[in-house]
């Protein structure tokens, strides 16, 4: 597998006062970033009508944000979208910009300790490649985390984490900076959120579509909502531009 350039999409509800914390901007220096300023409208409102009224303030805020990236030695591309459908917009822009990871920009004072949950379905190769690229030469601690459903499954979890740790150190991450943690819980998302409280940010894989995700929101969003910290979602590789009809 060749090392791709990891593009990170940073969606910001620009007119709702969302912004990107400085610590997060610092952490993203070195990776290409696309800041997506967007505004979600009720269906009664044509997006063009909102553009008429809100384009200027939105663009100004977005430019300010881009300037903040510039000041901290990072660079970013910006997009401004008025939409009825947040999910469609995020998917489309991620697709168009070839973004491999999406940031949920919760506040953070510093980014020194990352939590990387490794569940059953995670593409460990992809996620470790991203974590290694994100850390670069910085001095950041990584916790590889696994929530086993039963006591009996703990050993398997631990050996999985040891493998993943090997992948990380192979990619140049300092072995001393990586620790592993296995816990037992029937509610993996709750366990991750609890563990996240001791960390500055969470890096996790995209969850498979499921009934659970439909009812409670996707796992990364739940973790972001419960832990109140930034979460980076590493997207599954997209083989083609499989467009969907709505």
């Amino acid at each position, binding site marked *: 597998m060749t090392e791709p350039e990891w593009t990170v999409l940073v969606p910001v509800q620009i007119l709702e006062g969302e912004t990107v914390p400085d610590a997060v901007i610092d952490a993203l220096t070195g990776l290409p970033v696309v800041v997506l300023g967007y505004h979600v409208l*009720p*269906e*009664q409102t044509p997006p063009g*009508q909102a553009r008429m009224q*809100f384009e200027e303030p939105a663009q100004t805020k977005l430019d300010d944000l881009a300037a903040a990236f510039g000041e901290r030695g990072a660079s970013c591309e910006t997009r401004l979208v*008025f*939409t009825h459908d947040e999910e*469609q917009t995020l998917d489309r822009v991620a697709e168009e910009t070839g973004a491999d990871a999406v940031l949920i920009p919760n506040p953070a004072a510093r980014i020194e300790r990352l939590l990387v949950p490794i569940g059953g379905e995670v593409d460990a190769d992809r996620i470790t490649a991203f974590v290694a690229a994100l850390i670069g030469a910085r001095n950041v601690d990584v916790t590889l985390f696994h929530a086993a459903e039963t006591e009996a499954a703990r050993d398997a979890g631990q050996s999985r984490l040891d493998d993943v740790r090997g992948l990380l150190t192979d990619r140049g991450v300092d072995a001393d900076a990586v620790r592993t943690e296995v816990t037992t819980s029937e509610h993996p998302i709750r366990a991750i959120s609890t563990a996240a409280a001791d960390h500055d940010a969470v890096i996790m894989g995209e969850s498979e579509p499921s009934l659970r995700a439909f009812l409670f929101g996707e796992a990364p969003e739940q973790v972001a909502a419960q832990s109140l910290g930034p979460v980076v979602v590493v997207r599954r590789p997209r083989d083609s531009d499989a467009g969907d*009809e*709505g």
Partner: protein
Amino acid sequence: MAGVPEEATAGSGESANRDGESPIVGAGETEPEATVYDEGTELERTIGLSGGIAIGVGTMIGAGIFVFPGIAAGQAGPAAAGSFAIGAVVALLVALPTSELATAMPRSGGGYYFISRGMGSLFGAIVGLSLWFGLVFASAFYLVGFGFYAEAVLTQFGVALGGFDVVVPLALLFGVFLTVLNVTGTENAAKLQNGVVGVLLAIIVAFLTFGGLSSLGLIGNPEPISESFFSKGTFPVLTTAALVFTSYLGFAQVATVAGEIKDPGRNLPLAMVGSVLIVGVLYVATIFVAVSAFGSERLATLGETAMVTVAESFLGPLGAVAILIGGLLATVSSANASILSTSRAIYAVSKDALLPRVAGRINLRYGTPHVALGLAGGPILALILLGEVELLAEVASFLHLVMYGLICVALLALRRDEPEWYDPDFRVPGYPAVPILGAIASFALIGFMRPASQAIGLGIMALSAGWYFYYARDVSLRGAL
């Protein structure tokens, strides 16, 4: 034509209204899921094909099936089915040219946008402002229809009305409710609308199946009704077609959301033509079944809610309840879709500086266009007080038909001397016959309306023209993309 420069000077200082506002132009690139403007701003396209058809069918189906059968049968006899067929043909003749223009200019505003760009701002203003009132008349008509159904529901469940006429009060109440809901409601109702249309189609298809079997003598014990098809002569078929044309207004509402339709080159024509075909077939079949079961005389005495009695004869109380529910859902969905279209029509003209820009303001708290919704809701309530179903329907049809005729003319004008920007994905089959026939048919249908409706329609057009000359005569829109 207005004495304004022909080419796209819009946006420069010359093209301004009395308040000094200029049209906001700039076409942007149409991509399948977004419109991208030069400055980099993108507008997401979020309505798919099923959503587009739901808007078309949802707007139309309320009137044709649940309000008109009794009235139409009374006027035209069994040939009322023919009146609906004529309406469908006219609607198709217009839907095809509208589709071509919509794929060439997939922007909010629909027919108004095409006419202002193809024929200049005077015609644009007349159509744009008339469309506002046309939609207001249509919404009022649907809401009065709703009132009749709500009254029938109360009667069905044995609520004593004490001799009061509750139709108008109930229509008013719901008019207020829908307006307020649209200003304050930020929940996504699109999925609900799709569901409502699905339920309605299911009810109607069930009704037609039972009714069809019954009229063929396979179930029930129908009393054979022998009535000559043209029991009232042929002329009433045409006047009735003019009246019931209100049942076909919805396809152009699909064009008012053209700026939000995904993959517009494909989905706009399919949604417009498809929704006309769907409702046209259902209308003709419904009238046919209803008339064969009851005969036109008896149907006529049952008025706006005739279908309830018809369904009761096929399926007993269950049928009546199903049609009552269907009627409530259909009239509400039609009214709501029309109120939303009105708001979009007002936005389109205010964007082009034909109305003060404040008309397109968005509420900061709810993110909804509260001024435009108010400009829709207020006049609707006033018209409901009229309570005249047929007058409301005809004026709505009149104002839409003027627009339809001019859409066809705009297509002919654009095609005769195609501007460089004109590049539709869909081209009308049978050009130039289809748009020429569409224009003739639209204008001809107006001729069969009652003088009162014609006078009101012409008055609204004259007022629109007067407003244009007073407020916005320096605004230039022709070719201003």
